[in-house]
């Protein structure tokens, strides 16, 4: 079973999401436009752009899903209008500038699927002056949340699973954002707007926001809920808000606090979040006024080995492993003259310690050439 296909099946079967993008693209794309579908996946947003009258669509995707998108495009009779580019958009070049950029790299909290980085680059290199973006604005929302079951995922690690002490893991678990779904009654305050990201100017630089949430009922704060809404056009919004009746089928995020805090109506919960989009780092500082304060960060929860850390020291003197040397050889052999079969043969001959068969050499060479060759 392909998990990637299944993921795209979920995207396409999400009627709220599809309705939003269908309406927004019909509103934004004009007849004769050139459109960039960024992170195209199945190519659905590009197809919608074709249907809206786009003259040309550039569908960029680095994954092998692009071959499926090609077939789908052909099946729908748009293959004369869509140009597929199998690259990361940051590495791609286009022969012309576009009128519209469409994408759904929004993630669960509005920034965490790379849209800030990808849009900033695509806007600068691909978009015509005055060009349009879908989405054009993303808002990040937060609220203190009662979510005992989610908190159990943190406390699991001190439950002596299999009779062993896994308590050291709790620190990581308490500094991680969890994908989840909430019901509206789990929120302990009205949603607070953390920040609104104007994608016409937003960059991938770090940003932060601070909000104060007034608790509306007695309960227990287990963490902070985070979600987004996005303006896909002037009249179309898309959201995964637990309060929205038209929410898309996308999970939100749970940011735990170290221990539960009982609250009463009228209590104030101060939330400050710092976000580093390029590293997908989130730091959340939560203070229940007069009761407790917590600081958490996905930086603390990140799995980071001492071996990896040692390689980042300024005085570290790196040298190539045997496989690194072999990789260098493949790159050298990509000289614009030598066919792949000869490269594989040469690698098998040069590195008998690494490759016991032509097949093994071929797999290695293909991996390098796929990444760096053209």
């Amino acid at each position, binding site marked *: 079973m392909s998990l990637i296909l299944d993921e795209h099946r979920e995207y396409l079967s999400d009627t709220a999401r599809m309705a939003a993008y269908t309406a927004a693209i019909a509103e934004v794309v004009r007849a004769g436009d050139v459109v960039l579908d960024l992170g195209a996946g199945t190519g659905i947003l590009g197809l919608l752009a074709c249907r809206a009258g786009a003259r040309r669509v550039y569908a960029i995707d680095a994954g092998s899903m692009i071959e499926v998108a090609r077939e789908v495009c052909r099946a729908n009779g748009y293959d004369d209008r869509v140009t597929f580019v199998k690259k990361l958009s940051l590495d791609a070049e286009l022969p012309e500038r576009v009128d519209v950029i469409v994408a759904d790299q929004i993630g669960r909290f509005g920034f965490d699927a790379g849209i800030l980085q990808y849009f900033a680059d695509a806007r600068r290199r691909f978009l015509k002056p005055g060009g349009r973006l879908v989405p054009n604005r993303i808002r990040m929302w937060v609220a203190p949340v009662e979510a005992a079951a989610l908190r159990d995922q943190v406390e699991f690690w001190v439950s002596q699973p299999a009779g062993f002490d896994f308590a050291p893991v709790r620190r990581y678990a308490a500094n991680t954002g969890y994908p989840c779904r909430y019901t509206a009654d789990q929120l302990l305050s009205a949603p607070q707007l953390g920040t609104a990201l104007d994608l016409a100017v937003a960059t991938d*630089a770090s940003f932060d926001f601070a909000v104060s949430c007034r608790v509306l009922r007695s309960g227990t704060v287990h963490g902070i809920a985070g979600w987004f809404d996005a303006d896909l056009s002037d009249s179309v919004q898309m959201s995964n808000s637990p309060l929205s009746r038209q929410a898309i089928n996308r999970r939100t995020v749970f940011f735990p606090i170290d221990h539960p805090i009982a609250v009463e109506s009228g209590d104030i919960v101060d939330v400050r979040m710092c976000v580093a989009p390029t590293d997908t*780092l989130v730091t959340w500082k939560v203070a229940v006024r007069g009761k407790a304060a917590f600081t958490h960060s996905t930086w*603390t929860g990140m799995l980071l080995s001492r071996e990896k*850390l040692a390689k980042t020291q300024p005085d570290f003197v790196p040298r190539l492993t045997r496989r690194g040397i072999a990789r260098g050889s493949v790159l050298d052999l990509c000289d614009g003259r030598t066919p792949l079969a000869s490269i594989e043969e040469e690698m098998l001959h040069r590195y008998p310690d690494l490759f016991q068969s032509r097949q093994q050499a071929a797999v290695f060479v293909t991996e390098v050439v796929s990444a760096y060759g053209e």
Partner: protein
Amino acid sequence: MAELTINSCVVVSESVIAREVGGETVILELDSGTYFGLNPIATDMWRAIAAGGSLGDALAIVERAYEVDPAVLRDDLLRLTEQMLRRRLISLA
């Protein structure tokens, strides 16, 4: 900026998150997105500084852990503190 002395008190900046990996510390300064690494000795100093109190208090903590000339340790602690102040990882209280 006030002169840094052994009686100075410092606080860790709001924008700093530190974590230890294998006895070393990596500090992330959120505003700039810059990472700083501390070796095990500097890690002990960082812990002592971050505990609050004066640099003298921090020095006393570190002195208990190392059999080193106290004057050398004091100079090292002040130098590390100066570097951290310059990089805004800490500020004078």
